């Protein structure tokens, strides 16, 4: 994946890279208990939507919990605030299988013990693993950090599959430790995707997310329900004064509801519109970017509407807003028009956008607003 400035084309590149392996949700940042809880509820919502079998839901969920706890136990680094220190959590669903990947910083000294442990775990059969678990539990040996050894054995047991891993150097003392888990969901497993390749794709994406300082990224079906969960994740994750966070909330709601209401969809059965949303931080500003499909026939209208708003000064926008506020004529919930005006007023900056032709019917539309962080 080519690296670019975090403009709208970057959004399209990222969307394509994520689509390739069906990356559903990516979180990048520090992992705290609160954030872990939010991630769990967000992924639980999407599990509810996409997964019929409650047995599978439970299974995937319990492994996710284990993976996330593993990060909070494992993560170690120089200082808390350096982006290099940010871990990553990814969930994918492809061909009726789930793939969970975590990445976190570890002290290089721990590479060898972790590697040896995973190799040992991978060499054991189910029953042997059970015995090994008991043995470690009793002797208390093997604690790489805070019982992480036990966590890894437990994950291998719960997933019923070999653990796939990788390490990537950050600097002299630290490395990223990536762990890729595939929960076994039934006794008749079909061969899934090439996990080795998929893990490398995730490691590449992690590098881009680090370079662009992307704090949160969501790729999946957007509907009112996933929107609400995303909002609570954002509320729990973003920094700044209460007023600023409120402003961010306004911006995110309008941007995401634009997708929920206006985007088009190649597949009606999804129960929402596919889209990408991410927040990056740069030069004391948050950049908020969305990307979604629209019908080719809507492109010109969309361009005109944004350009019209971009041309107006803040005073003019205010008048325009008032006019639209009391315009109930074309009243169907799809044509408020207020949303775009409000986004420009709230962010105070020009709205960036781009169109990428996909095929005879659809265009990929990317849209970006920015907000100066005020503490």
């Amino acid at each position, binding site marked *: 994946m080519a690296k670019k400035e975090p403009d709208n084309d970057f959004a399209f590149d990222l969307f394509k890279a994520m689509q390739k392996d069906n990356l559903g949700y990516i979180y990048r940042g520090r992992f705290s208990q609160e954030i872990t809880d939010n991630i769990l509820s967000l992924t639980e919502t999407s599990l509810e939507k996409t997964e019929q079998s409650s047995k599978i839901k439970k299974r995937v969920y319990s492994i996710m919990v284990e993976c996330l706890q593993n990060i909070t136990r494992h993560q170690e680094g120089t200082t808390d605030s350096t982006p290099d220190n940010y871990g990553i959590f990814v969930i994918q669903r492809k061909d009726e299988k789930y793939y969970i990947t975590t990445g976190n910083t570890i002290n290089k000294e721990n590479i060898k013990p972790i590697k040896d442990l995973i190799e040992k775990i991978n060499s054991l059969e189910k029953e042997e693993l059970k015995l090994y678990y008991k043995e470690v539990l009793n002797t208390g040996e093997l604690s790489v950090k805070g019982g992480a050894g036990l966590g890894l054995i437990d994950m291998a047991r719960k997933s019923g599959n070999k653990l796939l891993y990788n390490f990537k150097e950050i600097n002299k003392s630290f490395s990223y430790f990536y762990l890729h888990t595939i929960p076994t969901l039934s006794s008749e497993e079909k061969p899934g995707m090439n996990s080795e390749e998929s893990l490398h794709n995730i490691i590449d994406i992690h590098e881009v997310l680090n370079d662009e300082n992307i704090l949160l990224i969501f790729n999946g079906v957007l*509907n*009112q329900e996933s929107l*609400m969960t995303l909002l609570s994740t954002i509320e729990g994750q973003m920094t700044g004064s*209460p*007023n600023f966070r*409120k*402003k961010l*909330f*306004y911006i995110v*709601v*309008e941007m995401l*509801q634009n997708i*929920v*209401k206006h985007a088009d969809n190649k597949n009606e059965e999804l129960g929402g519109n596919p889209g990408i949303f991410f927040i990056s931080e740069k030069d004391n500003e948050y950049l908020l970017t969305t990307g979604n499909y629209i019908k080719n026939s809507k492109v010109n209208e969309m361009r005109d509407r944004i350009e019209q708003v971009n041309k107006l000064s803040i005073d003019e926008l205010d008048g325009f807003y*008032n006019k639209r*506020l*009391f315009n*109930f004529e074309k*009243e*169907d*919930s799809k044509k*408020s028009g*207020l*949303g775009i*005006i*409000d986004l420009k007023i709230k962010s105070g900056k020009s709205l960036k956008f781009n169109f990428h032709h996909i095929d005879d019917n659809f265009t990929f539309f990317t849209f970006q607003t920015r907000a100066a962080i005020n503490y």
Partner: protein
Amino acid sequence: MEKLYIEATDDTPGINFNPDENTFIISDRSLPENAIEFYLPIFEWLDKYCSNPNNQTAFDFKLDYFNTASAKQIAKILLVLKKLSENNDVAINWHYKEEDNDMLASGLRYSKLININFEFIKY
């Protein structure tokens, strides 16, 4: 007249209209997927109320957040109340959290655009 009570959810406001107690409150957050659909029963209720209103109507907006689609519906409610105020005593109480400049600004905007008695209440 019957009361109208709708429990607040994460994305829809709480509605408590009770003419017997002279209480008319819209509270919490309003960001439904379909604002028009959500506000429809509210307008139906208000239409009935306006045909037989109390002597005095004090209407409380105590919202924490609303999206632009809801902003239009609130504008519509205010227009209904404006009409009522032509022959009746109507007051709007616009509540806003201390430091919530956006909510105050929204209220000020409505008060400039609609000629009705507005009271701003910080909480």
